[in-house]
């Protein structure tokens, strides 16, 4: 029976990374209201920042990670300021913003490829460095457990912040109606800037986790983002807990599919889940 346990653990590991992706994505989407494709590349840029500090400069692990998260946040913040904000003040449609974000994705990918080559690189310093825990005959490594715990901590923190702080309330107000929010005195431009910083920083965590788990490549940002989008739609777009639920559900279905059918169907299964939800429950499991 240990195959079922291992499959469940595999789903947990994949789900943890999807969760981080969806948490940042949901936050950005609820305020800016467009599918920010650049988010995928920003997440990977966070991973590459850690690669630079940790592996190339030889900095200490945790300070590299914090720097990586910070750089992803700053990058998201700047891109919002330089590219998305002028478009939004010109009342550009979300289709225009989507295309602009496609440009952001392409440019960041290209820059990463120039700086770090398009080769596959992993953030771990060597094989067998991480301890492995045995759980009922299944295996999970220390790094993977840390990723899982991080995802759950970020989810709880974000949920609490959005519910109980003034900032959270302001974000919700902007999500409901940006114009009315500014009329009642919320500085929506500043708020959106902060949201882009936090959302991109969470995305950076996802990119860093990916770097430790399956390794980095400039082009994996898009597939990472797509998994996050599917998780968001399945869970209920804009809902913090729904997104995480969707992420784990997606991971479980994917891994079950790989087990019961065949590994080559993994991506197809993910998109079938998306289509089924779009057709029969477009509001997701936990609507906003």
């Amino acid at each position, binding site marked *: 029976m240990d*195959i079922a346990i291992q499959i469940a653990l595999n789903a947990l*590991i994949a789900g943890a990374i999807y969760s981080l992706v969806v948490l940042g994505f949901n936050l950005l989407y609820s305020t800016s209201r467009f599918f920010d494709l650049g988010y995928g590349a920003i997440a990977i840029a966070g991973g590459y920042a850690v690669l630079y500090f940790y592996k190339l400069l030889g900095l200490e692990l945790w300070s590299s990670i914090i720097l990586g998260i910070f750089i992803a946040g700053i990058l998201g913040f700047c891109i919002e300021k330089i590219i998305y904000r002028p478009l939004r003040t010109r009342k550009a449609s979300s289709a225009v913003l989507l295309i602009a974000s496609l440009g952001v994705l392409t440019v960041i990918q290209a820059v990463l490829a120039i700086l770090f080559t398009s*080769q*596959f690189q992993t953030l771990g310093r060597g094989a*067998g460095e991480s301890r492995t825990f045995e759980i009922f005959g299944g295996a999970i490594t220390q790094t993977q457990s840390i990723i899982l715990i991080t995802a759950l901590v970020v989810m709880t923190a974000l949920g609490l912040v959005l519910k109980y702080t003034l900032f959270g309330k302001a974000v919700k107000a902007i999500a409901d109606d940006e114009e009315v929010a500014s009329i009642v005195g919320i500085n929506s431009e500043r708020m959106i800037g902060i949201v882009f910083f936090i959302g991109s920083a969470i995305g950076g965590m996802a990119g860093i986790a990916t770097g430790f788990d399956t*390794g980095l490549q400039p082009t994996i940002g898009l597939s990472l983002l797509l998994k996050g989008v599917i998780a968001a739609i399945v869970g209920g777009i804009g809902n913090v807990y729904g997104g995480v639920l969707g992420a784990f559900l997606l991971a479980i279905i994917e891994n079950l599919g*790989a087990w019961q059918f065949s*590994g*080559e169907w993994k*991506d197809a299964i993910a998109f079938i889940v998306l289509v089924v939800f779009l057709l029969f429950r477009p509001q997701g499991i936990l609507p906003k």
Partner: protein
Amino acid sequence: MERVNRGSALMWVIVALVVVVGGFSILGGKGGAPSTETGPIKIGVIGPLTGDAAIYGEPFRNTVQLAIDEINATGGIGGRQVEAIYEDGQCNGKEGANAAQKLVNVDKVQAIIGGVCSGETLTVVPIAEKGRVVVVSPSASSPALTGISPYFFRPYPSDASQGNVLANIAYTDKGWKKVAVIQEQVDYAVGLYKVFNQVFSGLGGKTVKEEFSSNVTDFRSVLTKLKAEKPDALFVLTQTAASTQRILKQMEELNWKPQIILDEASAGDKETLTTYKSQLEGALTSEFIPDLSNAKLQKLMSDYKAKYGTELPYLGYMAPAYDIVYILKDGIASVGYNGEKLATWSRTIKDWQGASGSVTISSDGDRVGGYSSEVVHDGKTEPYKK
């Protein structure tokens, strides 16, 4: 207003005329190039210059350029300089076809060196054949390329040989009855799996296969499944070392340490062998290895290092790449720069001495000779001994 308009309209007509006439005379001069014997000889080169497989494409381009520079420095071919036109095939059929279309129809080359991957090469050949352009690959090893076209040849053996060697040792010497295969969905891996499976099942063994598409990075559940099959060995069959490294890392995380069979694409990657040294200890593999004591190969290795500052990687692929340029040089010198004539000439290549050893091309376009088996020991490949 009208006057100005008419004046500027006239201006535009003149400009258009100049462009058209000028263009014609320039293009016309170029168009006549194959018949004039003075311009440079343009040879098309297709390889994966970007993406995972760029680890082959980059040294491939360097090696080809090294040979061309040498030829040009010694007077070119019959007094004409050689010029390479590099196109990115990205290791896949679609980009390979685009590259071939451009080289055949726009640049009007008579010979194409490449592709490096089987997937690229399989789509390049039919396009080149239509344009009567000869194609020669240094490393595409899929059995599907054997006898594919009279316009194609390769100074590299077919995977039929690699699959054969591996399956025979696995079953007969090692006594493995059940081999799990994790296979990337690319032409190279499909072709090699087919041969391996055919020979291995023919001997009485059984294979269990899981496939994955090239963009997959999480192999855990597929590996979990294969582990539960309790195979005697796992055949890691990928196009590039990147996937192999991910698979090995995730196997270790799953606490699975089976006997391993590696394809030549990963066995040729030094980084994979040294990083995953303990997991790969004793792994069975096979490579097409040029003879290291060959003086031409030694010269190529030292020249490459002097020019590019790094060691020449993937000797099994790069030595043939280097040889191809000189083979084409000899071909052009004897029959002229003409795809059709070069194609016929290619079948007469016999005991041609190059950096990859003695090259003989059989009537189906393959190099005569084959793979030798190896084992991984202490992060390096060694010849296999029973």
